[in-house]
């Protein structure tokens, strides 16, 4: 390297124009080779790692596919997953509230009757084994496919009614077609036509189900003046989608409170605030009444990749190690909702539910009574928020009902 000495000595002399750059022959630093080697090893390791996550994801996708389209784990499992929160694992029902299945006249009538009840649900008084129930059973038409309905109906009729007959998925398909769009069974009175020899069933109370005021109807379907119509976002029947919530079957009081909160700025959402500030009290109540009275099949499906088993645990039992009580301990068994402060959760759109839980956790929504949801949402990790939203989306839609006060039981339940 004697060459360099000559240059550095004359460093202030500019290089000539006809000089062309060239390269010296220093060795490749060993470090570069080591780095290359290490990166090669790392890259290979990463390939293997990604290969395994690839198979995990493929597996999950295949499992989803199976869960969505193929046979489930049998009637007993379906019963535990779909029926037992109300009818109890042993089918005895809940006194004064949920009719028993064990030895009930309807289970004895065979799987076809059971399937028809499952497909349509019940709204109205029904007498089972000498007890009268003000029945509000959701329709499972959207929550279960033909095969599942067939298995479940056969299981229920067999276990609780002693029926020998079983139902096939094709028969369920026929029943589904036959009953499509006919709404829920109007109590035992209507079911009496289906099951011969049923004891006298209570009469349906007169339903003063007049359509909404024309002004309200306009508002819902056409919008007014400066606001878009409700239906244009929430769907004609209030089913909702993605982060737009399902409104059908939420209690009237809850919808009224939320709209008022939007109007007053106590719940933030630019679009709803914009809409709500144009609404009068009369309109708010009219809209709320309309949606509270709607009975619509669920359009929600688990979509957030949540762990359904974990979600079910949180919904049914809570996770007290996080200080989180069961969702159902306030929102009612099956997530039907309680009063004006605890909205129905069943069949709610999962993206909406998860986004609301996240909003509470992040302090962007804070109109929950006593800050109950704020505290609970903060305690739930992100994966749990998704899990519980997905689980609730898998439940059948809430039967649309007006809420009844405890007064009924107080009065001795004579109307039961």
């Amino acid at each position: 390297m004697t060459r360099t000495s000559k240059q550095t000595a004359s460093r202030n002399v500019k290089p000539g124009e006809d000089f062309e750059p060239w390269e010296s022959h220093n060795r490749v630093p060993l470090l570069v080779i080591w780095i290359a080697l290490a990166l090669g090893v790392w890259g290979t390791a990463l390939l293997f790692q990604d290969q395994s996550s690839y198979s995990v994801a493929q597996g999950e996708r295949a499992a989803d596919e199976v869960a969505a389209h193929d046979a489930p784990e049998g009637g007993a499992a379906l019963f535990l997953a779909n029926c037992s929160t109300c009818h109890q694992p042993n089918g005895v029902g809940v006194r004064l509230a949920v009719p028993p299945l064990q030895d009930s006249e309807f289970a004895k009538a065979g799987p076809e009757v059971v399937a028809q009840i499952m497909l349509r649900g019940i709204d109205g008084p029904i007498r089972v084994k000498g007890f009268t129930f003000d029945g509000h059973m959701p329709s499972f038409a959207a929550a279960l496919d033909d095969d599942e309905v067939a298995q479940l109906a056969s299981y229920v009729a067999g276990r609780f009614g002693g029926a020998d007959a079983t139902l096939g998925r094709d028969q369920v398909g026929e029943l589904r077609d036959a009953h499509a769009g006919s709404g829920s069974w109007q109590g035992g009175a209507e079911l009496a036509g289906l099951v011969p020899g049923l004891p006298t069933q209570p009469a349906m109370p007169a339903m003063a189900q007049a359509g909404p005021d024309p002004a309200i109807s306009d508002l819902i379907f056409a919008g007014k003046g400066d606001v878009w119509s409700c239906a244009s976002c929430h769907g004609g029947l209030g089913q909702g989608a993605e982060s737009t919530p399902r409104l059908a079957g939420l209690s009237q009081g809850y919808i009224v409170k939320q709209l008022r909160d939007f109007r007053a700025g106590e719940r933030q959402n630019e679009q709803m605030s914009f809409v709500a500030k144009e609404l009068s009290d009369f309109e708010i109540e009219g809209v709320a009444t309309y949606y509270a009275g709607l009975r619509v099949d669920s359009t929600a499906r688990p979509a957030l990749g949540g762990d359904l088993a974990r979600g079910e645990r949180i919904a049914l039992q809570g996770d007290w190690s996080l200080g989180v009580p069961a969702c159902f301990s306030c929102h009612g068994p099956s997530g039907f909702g309680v009063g004006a402060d605890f909205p129905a959760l069943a069949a709610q759109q999962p993206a909406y539910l998860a986004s609301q839980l996240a909003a509470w956790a992040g302090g962007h929504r804070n109109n929950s009574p006593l800050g109950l949801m704020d505290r609970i949402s903060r305690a739930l990790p992100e994966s749990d928020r998704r899990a519980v939203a997905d689980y609730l989306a898998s439940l059948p839609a809430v039967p649309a009902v007006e809420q009844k006060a405890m007064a009924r039981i107080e009065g001795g339940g004579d109307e039961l």
Partner: protein
Amino acid sequence: MSSEHQEDAGQGRSAKRLILAAGGGLALVALGALALESGWVPGWISGRETVENMTQSDYFQPPSDADIPDSPFGEAVKRGRDIFMNTSTNAGEYVGNGLACSNCHLDGGRQPLSAPMWAAWTRYPMYRKKNDQINTMEDRVMGCFTFSMNAQHSVAGGPPPHGSDVYRDLESYFYWLATGAPTNVPMDGNGFGKVAKTDLGYSPERGAGVFAANCAVCHGPDGHGQTDANGRIVFPPLWGPNSYNWGAGMARIDTAAAFVKNNMPLSQPGKLSDQDAWDVAAFVNSHERPKDARQGDMTIEETRQRFHDGDQIYYGQKVDGVLLGVGTPDPERPVGAPELPVGPTPLE
């Protein structure tokens, strides 16, 4: 290279240092990123999972439901758990009001300071002043049915008789919950805890405000609880004919205050101040409820002297000029009795 160092050692060194420092810095960043990528250090994806840890690890940890053995014993534990969670259904003929065991013993009897069953199990048999005798667990549970569940008003007209399967199943559940718990040692978290006495004492008038602000949203402004669409009780009634009777421990203001302080509002224990807990307990327990099961033919005053002497309870006292302890009027027929003359009982 060496010749260069000799010639311009200073410049060579500083250049080398510069390159090494910059290169080292970049290498560190790169290494960190690679480590993160390979999952050797926790990243933001897993970081999103971490939440404030609220585990009550100081307390005894009962086993989880998934661990219930698959055996005849496990079956009994499950039945017991079902009775515990849904008493009015699974032991319905002995329940005379709208309550279940799990209304006071939260999280299926697991929650510390809400009288957890794993702590209770190891304390029996014990002497209880309440009935001045040694009580077995069965005696104690019978007391719960009698007072808290107001069994007198039930279909059966009283608590399950001694030896009933209801006790067997419940005790199996308790025994299982206490798996691994030390025997004959008072455990942390047993009972409802205590609330320190406050200078102001307690007052139902102040309590009314606390109730309206913190309790009414669930238990209803009238304290009668709330039901779901099917009429199923979701929030238990706190007074009135469907609540616990005057003989229940919860009717005592200090017990109720401790329960409220340590468990209410649900999921927000400790939210209320000691004073608020006392006041709201006083407010709740200043309402009429089913009469004390032990009263029999005695007058209220006699009952009070015999059973409530020295207790912090409004039984036999006048609040707002109304004597408490008379009991709510019995509904015309017992809760849950069939409308038709005879019907099969839901159990069995």
